[in-house]
């Protein structure tokens, strides 16, 4: 079968790539586009390590077909920082020691950004349920939740 030609916008830049019809967005990002920050933990949508934003919406890229991003915008972990400035979620992950091995970190940061984009003042419970699709095996989530809540506070305009 012929490969599919996909034109899309990734992290603000126009990109083209070729993929098989059955290729996942995760596979295309990592292999065809060369953005390996998006991680593979399961390919069944259960671990969240491959989280990206598609048209601003949080999706597990392992369950999205690569061909589906034709004409859409994709934001990966590599596109979360604003130029030289880290996103507050990234900065707070560093300050809180909210990562140990770090393999789940890109997915958590993308998911947390998606949360704060729509809900600037989440409760701890809301944050825990929003991030329930992201598995972390090292931290017990404590410092991750604190980092996200702290990032939310940093993002809110001063009262």
């Amino acid at each position, binding site marked *: 079968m012929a490969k599919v030609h996909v034109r899309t916008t990734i992290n603000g830049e126009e990109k083209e790539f070729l993929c098989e019809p059955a290729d996942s967005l995760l596979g295309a990002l990592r292999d065809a586009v060369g953005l390996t920050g998006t991680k593979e933990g*399961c390919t069944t949508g259960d671990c969240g390590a491959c989280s990206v934003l598609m048209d601003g919406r949080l999706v597990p890229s392992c369950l999205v077909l690569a061909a589906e991003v034709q004409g859409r915008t994709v934001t990966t972990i590599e596109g979360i920082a604003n130029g030289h400035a880290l996103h507050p979620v990234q900065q707070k992950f560093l300050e809180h020691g909210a990562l140990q091995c770090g393999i789940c970190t890109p997915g958590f940061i993308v998911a947390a950004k998606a949360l704060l984009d729509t809900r600037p003042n989440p409760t701890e419970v809301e944050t825990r349920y929003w991030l329930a699709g992201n598995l972390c095996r090292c*931290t017990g989530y404590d410092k991750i939740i604190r980092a996200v809540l702290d990032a939310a506070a940093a993002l809110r305009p001063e009262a």
Partner: protein
Amino acid sequence: MKDFKYVGTRPIRHDGLDKVTGRANYGADFALPGMLYGAVLRSPHAHARIVSIDTKAAEAMPGVKAVITGDDIPENFAKVAIGGEGTFDMHDMGDNALAHGKALYNGHAVAAVAAVSLEAAQEAAVRIEVVYEPLEPVLSIDRALAADAPILHENLVEGQGPTNVAARMELKRGDLDAGFAEADVVIEREFRTPMAHQGYIEPHACVARYGEDGRVLVWCTTQGPFLVRDACAAILGLDGSKIKVISSEIGGGFGGKIPVYLEPLAIALSRKANRPVKMVMTRDEVFRATGPTSGTKVVMKLGAKRDGTLVAAHASMWYEAGAYRGSPFGAGAMCCLAAYKIPNFFIEAYDVVVNKPKVAAYRAPGSPASTFATESLVDEIARTLGLDPIDLRLKNAVAEGDNAPYGPAYGPIGLKQVLEAARNHPHWTAPLAPNQGRGIACGFWFNAGLSSSATVTLDGDGSAAVVTGNPDIGGTRVAQALMVAEELGIPVDRVRPIVADTDSVGFTDVTGGSRVCYATGMAVIAAARDVCDQLRARAAKIWDIDPASVEWEDGRAVPPDGADGRGPLTVAELAAKIGHTGGPIVGRASVNAPMAGPGFGAHICDLEVDVETGRSIVVRYTAIQDAGKAVHPDFVEGQMQGGASQGIGMALNEEYIYNASGVMENAGFLDYRMPVASDLPMIDTVIVEVPNPLHPYGVRGVGETPIVPPLAAVANAMRDATGIRFTELPLSPPRVLEGLSARTTEDRDAWRPSTYQAV
């Protein structure tokens, strides 16, 4: 106790930026030009004789460059002891990498293919024709021990004939019968825990290149690059000096990334195809074919006097090794009574082979299961005698000078301080809501020492690099940088911590055994002190005085009193002159630490049980542990929180589920239910610091102890909430519901709400 300037602070880790921006390279993120992709054909049977393997059809598939079977891995009967957490049998490691003659578990690798794409390799793998003669699988300890049990290994012989019991050990002290005769209360129960997986989020992955000159490059995610080198050399009969292993960033391990699985296959495929080969496991393969921890059966009897003094213990325990010998049965036996002074005990432990994946180390391997039994019984004795569970533990707790059950006397240890901290924590006396219960449990782990190497190089600008050989699994780079900063008196961000490949640093044992901050840390401190000694000599040269008269204080070379007009010289001042005082400065050290400081912890758990569904949720949790000295407290707390979380997972939900023919039925994260963020509360931590005299800063390992207490802490909370003593894990909703429905009316009437509950 020494005052620290940098140790104990919480700087941002050096590898953090790469990890929050997606730039850090893990096992699957590496590629080489001309790389092929490998796939593995695995046994669908739990136990089967391999009658024949025909690879011709697969080899003829387009894009296929190499196919290997067990014939490509020489049968090696040498017994080689390598690595930090146990010894490895090379025959078994090779046979586990690719089966020879018999498939021993569902998922056992039988053949592997390298092709130009992953899809081509996967399609070719299923075209390999394997004729199996299925055999009855051995899926439980009870079945393995039965007189008519099928035998996994004909050469495993004990007494009259073949057996599935690979080993037995015992520990004893005092007079057991006299001890139990003294007891006013004796409680005995049988406990069971299922096989459970480490659950690291990153699957195993590697790239291997076998060169025309016989030199091999392996890039892989591992806890022990030197172990990968030595194991691959032994399994494939290669010259280890020709293998260079570069460890990638590692996405979790917990012991499970100590053995090799893909690496020898990738090397063998690369040798055959003369191209680099990349292999990455699927999550399904990780569950079926890597090393979880043992399923166990522990029968334990504990006797106490009316005042709570423990007087006798008798334990028999069986640990599933999986398909090959080598479960952590010995550690299980040694750890189960390590927290208490018990004058009379007898412990026997058995290593049992079953048709399940060969177990690997999993965080304090062996201790959680046997400690689950002890801490459940201690709780039951406290209830029976009407004693406070912390008082009872304190009454029997070991302290410096007491002998461990496995022999040696403890040095300074912090169990009593940990228990006092638990009693003083507001959590212990906080009121509970209805259907909630509270449990406490202790845990012990030996911690490992072993071999490590380090170099510290000083640059002319006064910055330093520290080079070690331990993959950084949870913040050890920054911990080592803190130690160099402390010795040299330079800021932490002026130290560059580097994890080197096997050609670039001296031999270093695995990142495991809670040994990196401790043992590798000792090498780092010694290497930094070597730099300081050289700097003192340089200062003496500048001052033209005897080097022995120069002191090193607070990051400065200080001249003796009366050295007129000569002020102290800082590292930066001395570094700026190294070109004129003797050239570059490199400090180096190695350690071979035979012992470590043991770690004790205690966890308090509040559990809320939904009596209609059997679902329970942890509503409050506190972990207390003796860390000796917390070098970077964020990552010490992180170890305590992460270990607690894994232990809660074991207690509440995690288990390998097999069907009757031995096929694992829940090999994915949806059905193998690890805790997610919404399952857990914040996990409060209290770091107790009883310095470990074996380490210059008092550090003791912290990584493993925290997975030990949760099993019983949760089960004791369940007992408090429901009145039911569950002895089999996990406490998943169906099991709890079954227990709740089995309660008789009398049970319910006799049951008083938790003593912590506000009436």
